[in-house]
């Protein structure tokens, strides 16, 4: 019998090795790019500004703004800051709640009496502390949520009775409903309930925003996959009902058919008896478009014009002002683009290019638009003047403790 040559065996082994070497490279993500697994299910920026509580007598409202500061390349040296302008025309002041590191981000909810801020988790922190104020951030009362807040700008909602809604978990699958301070708490398995409520309108893959309606009932916005529906839901009395409506037809001209696309509710809030919000329709290829929506008290569903967003651009900040106006700040990696959705006309208009370093805009009282420009620990607040140019209005130096979280 002829013996098998060791050389042939070696050939087979080495050939297999070469195949292994050749194949192994395709499994590795190039350095500097996030792996698919690392991509977040939600892509809603946390930087924002919202109207503040109406002042007694005049009912004039101030504003709140949330921006990241520090060294953005280092998550442990990025600290989120909360600024408040208590009354129209007054200077902005730093109002970040103390006692907890906020490298993970902050979330704010306001009502007629004050504001609640939630701290998103980072490093070893596994649950979200809360802080509430009725004094425009001069003093805060601490509280705590049992789990981590969903990292979206509307993960919290409060109503004048003191109840808090909180989206928990990475995809907001649970809503915590409690009085302010955690005295009584109930958990809703909101994701499955909303998914059931949505029937065939929407395949819910995440709950992305909570708010209270003018009737005091909880509202939720969701991300629907393969849908031509905007996922807005109202809880009444113990179940969720769809109150959203169809995506505008113009959106499909940009993102293609509903197959493979998703519609994500970015923001939802109440203005008078109307439920308003901002949604984004996203195609499988990454092209998306933004549009505003409004459900009037009589149930009428209207949507705004759509704003196309190419895959090379992404959102930096979103927010809203009084009168239903919405702003978005986008970047293509090099420059910033700011667009304003007029609440009354329902059309998008491009604002003057925001200054480099802008983290959010504020739609203030009297039609004043401000840009929050961050340079490490310095905040520069620029105002958009009537000539359509940005002019510096205020500078705030924030005592950021670099290295305190690393």
């Amino acid at each position: 019998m002829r013996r098998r040559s060791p050389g042939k065996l070696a050939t087979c082994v080495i050939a297999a090795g070469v195949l292994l070497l050749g194949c192994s490279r395709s499994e590795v993500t190039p350095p500097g790019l996030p792996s698919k697994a690392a991509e977040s299910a939600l892509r809603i920026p946390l930087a924002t500004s919202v109207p503040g509580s109406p002042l007694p007598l005049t009912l004039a409202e101030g504003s709140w703004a949330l921006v990241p500061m520090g060294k953005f390349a280092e998550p442990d040296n990025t600290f989120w800051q909360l600024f408040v302008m208590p009354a129209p025309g007054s200077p902005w002041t730093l109002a970040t709640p103390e006692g907890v590191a906020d490298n993970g981000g902050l979330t704010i909810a306001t009502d007629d009496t004050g504001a609640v801020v939630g701290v998103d988790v980072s490093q070893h922190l596994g649950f979200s502390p809360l802080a509430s104020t009725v004094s425009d951030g001069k003093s805060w009362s601490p509280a705590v949520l049992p789990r981590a807040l969903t990292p979206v700008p509307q993960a919290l909602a409060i109503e004048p009775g003191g109840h808090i809604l909180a989206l928990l978990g990475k995809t907001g699958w649970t809503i915590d409903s409690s009085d302010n301070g955690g005295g009584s708490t109930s958990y809703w398995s909101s994701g499955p309930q909303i998914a059931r409520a949505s029937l065939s309108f929407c395949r819910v893959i995440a709950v992305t925003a909570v708010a209270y309606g003018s009737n005091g009932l909880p509202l939720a916005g969701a991300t629907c996959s393969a849908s031509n529906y905007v996922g807005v839901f109202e809880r009444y009395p113990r179940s969720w009902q769809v109150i959203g409506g169809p995506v505008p037809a113009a959106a499909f001209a940009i993102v293609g058919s509903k197959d493979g696309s998703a519609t994500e509710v970015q923001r939802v809030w109440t203005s008078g008896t109307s439920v308003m919000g901002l949604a984004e329709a996203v195609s499988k290829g990454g092209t998306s478009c933004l549009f505003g929506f409004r459900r009037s008290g009589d149930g009428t569903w209207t949507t705004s014009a759509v704003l196309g967003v190419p895959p090379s651009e992404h959102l930096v900040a979103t927010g809203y002002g009084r009168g239903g106006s919405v702003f978005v700040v986008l970047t293509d990696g090099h420059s910033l683009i700011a667009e304003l959705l007029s609440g009354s006309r329902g059309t998008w208009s491009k604002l003057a290019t925001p200054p480099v370093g802008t983290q959010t805009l504020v739609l203030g009282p009297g039609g004043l638009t401000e840009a929050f420009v961050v340079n490490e620990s310095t905040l520069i607040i620029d105002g958009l003047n009537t000539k359509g140019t940005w002019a510096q209005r205020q500078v705030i130096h924030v005592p950021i403790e670099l290295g305190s979280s690393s």
Partner: protein
Amino acid sequence: MPGMSSGLSPNNSTIVSAFQSALLHQALVVVVILVLLAIAWNVLRSVQYRNAAAAVAVERAGAADAGDGDSAAGRTPIVSMYPLATKLEVWAETEPSGRRVLRIGFGLLWVFDGVLQAQASMPLGMTTQAIAPTAKASPAWAQHVVNLGATVWSDHPIVAAAAVVWIQLGIGLWLLVAPRGFWSRGAGLVSMGWGLVVWVFGEVFGGVLVPGVTWMFGAPGAVLFYCFAGALIALDDRRWANSQLGRVILRTMGVFFLAMAVLQSWPGRGFWQGRVPNAGGAGMLTAMVTQMAGTPQPRLLASWVRAFASTDAAHGWAVNLFVVIALALIGLGWLSRRDRIVLTTVVVAAVLCLADWVLVEDFGFFGGTGTDPNSMIPMLLVFVAGYVAMIRTVVTTEAEVLDPQLELPADLTPEPGGVRKLEEAELHRPPWRERVRTHPAYAFRVLSAMGAVILMLLGAAPMALASLNHRADPIVSQAVDGPPTAVDLVAPSFQLENQYGRPVSLASLHGKVLTMTFLDPVCTKECIIAQEFHQAAALMAADTGKVDFVAVVANPVYRSLSVVQAFDRTEGLVGMSNWLFLTGLATELAKVWKSYSVAVHVEPAGAMVSHSEIAFVIDASGYERFRLNTQPGPATAATEASFASVLAESLQQVLRSK
């Protein structure tokens, strides 16, 4: 990869001095072993001398009986007192030349590698600088496998690093001193086995799972050639008796070189470009070589490597073409049946390997954490040994060299030309015990091999024990925080409430040994102390009822019961029966902080509350016995486990002194 690093600087002075001290102590043990072996050798020599003298006396008595009695006792030359030994030289060490090349070559390489392992930065640098970079780019399953070994190393850096020094020195010496037979083949097997361990855990499967793998940088892993050589050394001697094995070695290397040529030529892997125009960076090979040039090394060598990097940057395509063609031709040359082509190929391959070793691999062992001279030298040894084995199939016996006039047994008389086939010598080999008893050189080699094995075991035994010991060495924690400070003070009293709202005072805890620290329940770092307490509690499971682990809230803002309960839930402390997280009013807490000299500051602008990081060990009578710095340092799994060991040891010490 949690176990991949202790997080400390490779030059951490505590670890470096502990490593050097351990090596020194073990070197003293080695000296003792050498002395014992020397004594054994002398005893053996005496026995051999007595046996030989007795044999001579018997011979002489026989001669005297025959009437030839004029020789004087005591004047016999020493050489003639070993007649049997001298005759046995013929069986001695007829080692095939190819095998000898491998054995001595790889023996020296292992010794050199062992010496490299003694570099000061090895205990901490091995995982972070040698293993982690390759592991990070490898698939998850490979990372998982490698992490098992890396965790043992990170938890026991001194033991592991010192162990590798002695294991590799032992294997090297074993190969060098045992030329043939059982001991020699055993050395080959051990060399192969240890090589596999190093290939998997030290080289992360030789880096073959990483993108950009290339022959020029050591694919498929230098140690794989050690394994190959070890397997060849372990082969039965008869395999070396003809040219077949040498041809198989060279053909295997030929196929390997052809495969490497295909890999090197594979498009899209970045080796055809010296520069990447769009990305504005260096091509794959240029980048690798430039990185090597940055390794601390003599300036002249760095300039050579940089020069090659510049050449590749300018002519990347041509350089790669040359390499691909050279690899392919070498591969084809060794598959040839013509000896002259094979010889030419060996010479060309040797030149290419040496050029690559100097200009691309940059010698492989500079920089403080180089563990071997990379792949080119072992590869060169393998194919040179293959060639030698192919052309030199017969050997000259040592006996003939030593004593050409020796009268040999008839069946062992050398063939014309002074050569004799290996297999014939094997047939007449006496049992090893007889050779030890009668053959001084053989006895010396056996004793030396035993010494080398003991040297290897000096490393292997502690390493095996360390891999079974899940308690990390305290030295890692002490490198961060220093050792615990012994004190003898009355612990300040306090009155707070636990995480369930029940009142707790120091007096109520008397009778148990406590460890107490100060902890921010909404911390984002430093809260690692909670897990360290948890681990220490697990280490002290037998004394659960005698020890309490206590933390006092160190945050004047977030201090409510709901906060501490949320912390316990997320840290998995709810089920820990002897865990107490104490809180109270801000004023009550401030009083406790002050009495224990713990500073707590609320920082502005989204920063964590800062506080002193300290733990106390308080005995059952309420006396402080130890203070431990609880700075987490790099806060890795190794530092965490090590601190838990230190804490558990301190608690056990206080328990014993109760």
